[in-house]
């Protein structure tokens, strides 16, 4: 595709919706994709949504970018996100906040909000590279009515990703359809020796799992996450209509209980904040990123740079994460949470003995209005991630598929580690019968 066509469209859309932090003026002809702004692109500004990286131009490409370029994809631009991924609505962004293309008074979701919004709104780009730590692909996929695939932890190389939480971060894809998202996953997945947590396995062609008959699949609908308190009534109705669609097309669905449902959110946030606070220690205003006049001691200088250029949520997570790793508190929070992650993963594994796929709504709410988000306190903000943090915590593959076309509610299918085949087959099947 010709550069000038997709660049012009990206600019026009950006005026209306702020999907991009940076548009790639140097883009050459090729298949246009957008990329979350926490993934390093050589010679193209990469801010991770933060002021502290406002002037950062990587001197190398992330592995996923290298792979995409080899397959004739070109980066249209770097998409808007919450600072370092810290948020569920892309409103914690130091730059212009992306607006939902279905209703521009509402959020695109987060943290990969810009990429999901652009994938929905563009007529020229069918897929996008996003990243999820606790739901940052699924959430915006649901809110912008596109497909989002978060693969198994380690399936896609994280080399060149600006870390939020190393044991949770996963690069994945958005697509207008399941097929679009799968095609891009095919390109970016696979072992990479530059990432020590890359899974050593042969390259798989995920497109072969499209168009399958999955009537033999057993689907477990997680009760605690699909009914009642905390789930918006419209979401609940849409979701159960979706379940009925599956059942009337021959798929067996059964309600099942997830015993540790109330632990998932706190365990996730403890680990995520602890890891984030160590990752953000590297931003000290010397080797890259924003600097200041050199004054005072090293510690005084670092503390001043970090005060000036981190946003409020980043500061909050640095403080909470540091606190939970300090002597005297470490065992009660960080170590405890790591142990509980083992328990939660065991619980999922038990369910996967009986079920091929687990199912919940993707988000418990419809995309909120910006005026509503302003009123949320931190705990209310974090609670919005109640449905997506579980599978992210355990590194399970998941796909969010719009319940209906142009509807901002997602069906969230989750499978056991490395069973991308199952989420792709059922996601694609659902897309055909919905």
């Amino acid at each position, binding site marked *: 595709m010709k550069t000038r066509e997709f660049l012009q469209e990206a600019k026009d859309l950006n005026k209306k919706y702020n999907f991009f932090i940076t548009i790639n003026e140097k883009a050459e002809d090729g298949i246009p994709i957008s990329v979350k702004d926490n993934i390093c692109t050589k010679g193209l500004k990469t801010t991770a949504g933060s002021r502290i990286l406002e002037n950062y131009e990587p001197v190398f490409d992330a592995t996923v970018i290298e792979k995409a370029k080899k397959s004739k994809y070109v980066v249209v631009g770097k998409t808007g996100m919450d600072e370092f991924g810290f948020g569920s609505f892309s409103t914690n962004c130091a730059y212009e906040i992306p607006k939902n293309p279905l209703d521009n008074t509402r959020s695109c979701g987060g943290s990969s909000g810009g990429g999901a919004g652009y994938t929905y709104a563009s007529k020229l780009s069918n897929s996008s590279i996003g990243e999820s730590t606790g739901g940052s692909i699924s959430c915006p996929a649901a809110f912008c009515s596109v497909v989002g695939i978060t693969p198994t932890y380690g399936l896609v190389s994280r080399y060149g990703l600006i870390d939020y939480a190393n044991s949770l971060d996963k690069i994945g894809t958005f697509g207008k359809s399941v097929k679009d998202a799968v095609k891009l996953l095919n390109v970016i997945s696979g072992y990479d020796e530059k990432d020590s*947590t890359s899974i050593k396995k042969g390259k798989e062609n995920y497109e072969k799992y499209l168009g399958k008959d999955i009537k033999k699949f057993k689907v477990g609908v997680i009760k605690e996450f699909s009914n009642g308190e905390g789930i918006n009534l419209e979401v609940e109705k849409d979701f159960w209509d979706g379940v009925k669609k599956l059942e009337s097309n021959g798929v067996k669905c059964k309600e099942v209980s997830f015993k540790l449902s109330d632990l998932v959110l706190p365990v996730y946030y403890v680990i995520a904040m602890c890891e984030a606070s160590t990752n953000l220690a590297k931003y000290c205003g*010397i080797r890259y990123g924003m600097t200041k006049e050199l004054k005072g001691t090293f510690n005084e200088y670092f503390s001043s740079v970090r005060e000036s250029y981190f946003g409020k949520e980043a500061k909050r997570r640095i403080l909470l994460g540091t606190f939970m790793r300090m002597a005297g508190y470490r065992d009660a929070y960080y170590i405890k949470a790591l*142990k509980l992650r083992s328990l939660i993963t065991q619980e999922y594994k038990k369910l996967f003995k009986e079920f091929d796929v687990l199912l919940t709504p993707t988000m418990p709410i419809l995309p909120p209005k910006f005026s509503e988000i302003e009123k949320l306190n931190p705990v209310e903000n974090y609670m919005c991630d109640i449905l997506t943090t579980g599978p992210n915590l*355990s590194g399970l593959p998941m796909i969010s598929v719009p319940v209906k076309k142009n509807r901002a509610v997602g069906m969230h299918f989750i499978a056991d580690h490395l069973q991308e085949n199952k989420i792709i087959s059922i996601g694609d099947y659902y897309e055909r019968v919905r």
Partner: protein
Amino acid sequence: MKIDKELIERVAKVSRLNLKEEEKESFVKDFKDVLEVFSKIGKVKTDNLDLSVQPVKFENVFREDKVEKSLNEKEVFKNTELKEKGFFKGPKIL
């Protein structure tokens, strides 16, 4: 554990982060609210559980210790003004 301004100041010092007075006040409140939710995890027994440092198990990967291509000097210093004669510049120590 007492969550007050002194605690926030102590954590901020360890975190190398200066805070304004009004930020300290608001973080006291946030700590109270958030840690109350997190305290739930203390109620579950975890005696026989392993630490899941990663959600998926990995084996160590080794490679030959050989010299490979790395960034050149121009690339290393591309993203900072704080440089002089092939070194990064920091605040004075003495």
